[in-house]
């Protein structure tokens, strides 16, 4: 399936910027699940200082906001041809070894509730089935609800709060899988919705490494493994590794952020 994607992130600053950097994870790469047919990243109100690979093999851009700018617009757009592999990325590895995806991160620390969720998976013989069951269980415990969680919400907080978005679902899935002894990671990307083109935010899901299949994706929010409607942007140990845009800015003043996203066939 050819997905046409246009993803715009606009920052508005209430005081002119003296110095601000943004690290972008906005360049999908070709792999066995997708072929990038064309892709561009453009910046208005700043410049791309450099483009390089991070330690997960993601391609990042470092953006410097123009001095005195009050607005920065980053647009990533292009076409990605996806291949339906039932969410199985397989035994494909980068520079980071599997044990790296076994380490807790600040956002995915195992709490008591998370450890409890891990019990069935720990002892399962059908690990794939157990992961799907876990995914369903997480969605039941944490229904999809916007506005209840933030960028820095941890897996445990989302689980306790009983509501969250795709990032929180992925974090809980990752935390549980790791505690059960399986390497797990965060995937950021796009999902084509069947009922509309315009979306408010990019998507995210989890991947768990199973001994037989290798990396397998689980989109907890939608209760499925990724199919050809999904395009991958970046991977990481949690959202902080793979967030589409992460930045820092010198000085005071508020900023507001508007994301517009269109994904269509």
């Amino acid at each position, binding site marked *: 399936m050819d997905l046409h994607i246009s993803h715009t992130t606009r920052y508005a600053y209430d005081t002119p910027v003296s*110095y601000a*950097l943004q*690290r972008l994870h906005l360049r999908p790469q070709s792999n066995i699940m997708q072929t990038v047919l064309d892709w561009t990243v453009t910046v208005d109100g700043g410049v791309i*200082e*450099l*483009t*390089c*690979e*991070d*330690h997960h*093999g993601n391609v*990042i851009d*470092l953006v*410097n906001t123009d001095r005195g700018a009050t607005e920065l617009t980053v647009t990533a757009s292009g076409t990605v041809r996806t291949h339906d592999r039932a969410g199985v990325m397989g035994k494909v590895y*980068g*520079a*980071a*070894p599997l*044990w*790296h995806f*076994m*380490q807790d991160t600040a956002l995915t620390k195992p709490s008591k509730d998370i450890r409890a969720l891990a019990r069935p998976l720990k002892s399962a013989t059908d690990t794939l089935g157990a992961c799907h069951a876990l995914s369903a269980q997480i969605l039941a415990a944490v229904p999809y609800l916007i506005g209840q969680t933030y960028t820095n919400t941890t897996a445990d907080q989302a689980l306790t709060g009983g509501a969250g978005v795709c990032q929180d679902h992925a974090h809980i899935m990752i935390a549980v899988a790791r505690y059960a002894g399986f390497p797990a990671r965060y995937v950021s990307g796009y999902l084509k919705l069947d009922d509309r083109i315009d979306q408010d935010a990019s998507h995210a899901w989890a991947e768990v490494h199973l001994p037989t299949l290798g990396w397998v994706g689980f989109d907890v929010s939608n209760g499925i493994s990724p199919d050809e409607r999904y395009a991958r942007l970046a991977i990481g*140990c949690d959202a902080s590794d793979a967030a589409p845009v*992460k*930045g*820092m800015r010198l000085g005071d003043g508020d900023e507001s952020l508007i994301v517009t996203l269109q994904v269509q066939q």
Partner: protein
Amino acid sequence: MNTKPDHFDEMRMGDDQVRPPYANYKSWFDGQDPGRLAKKSKEAEAFFRRTGITFNVYGQMAAEERLIPFDLVPRIISGREWTKLSRGIEQRVRAINAFLHDIYNRQEILRAGRIPIDLIARNEAFLPQMMGFSPPGGVYTHIVGTDIVRTGEDDFFVLEDNARTPSGVSYMLENRETMLQMFPELFSRIKVRPVSDYPKNLRRSLAASAPKSCGGKPVIAVLTPGIYNSAYYEHSFLADQMGAELVEGHDLRVVDGHIAMRTTRGYKQIDVLYRRVDDEFLDPLTFNPKSMLGVPGIMDVYRAGNITIANAPGTGVADDKAIYSYMPDIIEFYTGEKAILKNVETFRCGEQDSLKYVLDNLAELVVKEVHGSGGYGMLVGPAASKKELADFADKLRARPSNYIAQPTLSLSTVPIMVKKGLAPRHVDLRPYVLVSPDGVDITPGGLTRVALTEGSLVVNSSQGGGTKDTWVLED
């Protein structure tokens, strides 16, 4: 002079005989007027204070500046002894660089099962952001300060491999400078190998490690946390001696994909950054977001191949005290040779049997924090009170893997000047090693730290230690 028989004294053999490296010096010393030497000692202190060769003590009143006491009796090493030492150090430093490259890339040593994965995976000094990347020239530790102690004629042990940002080299240089000014006649009488080339060699070594993309003469800068840092004097001294700019984080920005410093004429690109800021604070965009000392984005510039950071981030994974205990294996794995310098026997308290042994023998052992430095958080068993031992045992039980223990070594002694003449005190040695794609360069000598209190084994300057000039003889 009363040397305890259980210590190796580097000047004396028995009561009357002087060891050969010291023979010439001792005969000079015996001809000196003690009053004149005492006066020289005062002069040296005044010189250090006027020049501002001070360090700031953590935990004391803000920005209090102190002098490190300087003892004017040199510590003397023969050329033959030095040859062996330097071969051992070079071997070790090469192995450390090979280890770091491996750990951040293919991890063969972990696949081979020679080191437990957890030691790396759970190591705070391991930086995932360094994975899948080779620094310019393949060098990780451009500057190393290997801490060495001696216990006998042929017994040298490595105590610590300081592979992050070893400090103290300015004292090595200033101590020699002071000795040259005070006792010029000594240096015409005894041929001592010079240390004064260090800044030039440092500059050359850093320049040789510049990124490939750097055309022409590389621009080098020294990154300091600022004037209130304990080693600020050294930072400014080295920058000055190398003819490099001394910069702070807020002088730097990302410009045209490089790191650049703000000059009176605009931003100017830097090719090699000799940073004296710890990993955690180096890049708020990548590591501690609250850091005010670092350079946001520098890790991306680094991975893009546009700057050399010396030492590379993440080198701490090679010098913590738990890894230390594996150094003989590491050396063998990467060089195919046995380690030339010995390791001190080390008990990893994280291991059940070791912990038991350590708790049972606490009074005889030295216990250190795995990530500690500067003598803080350390227990010297033989010098500790019953209560101190008991308190420390609690700490050990609470977080065993945070500690290692070693037998108390009977460190060698070297004479210092006291009111009554010469008296032996325990010493260690930190030679300074430069690594570049062109090779390894070890300055003959180094910093000798001396425990000024009689019988004390703690040489750290923050804990009442002093320093000495260290001579390597031309022989």
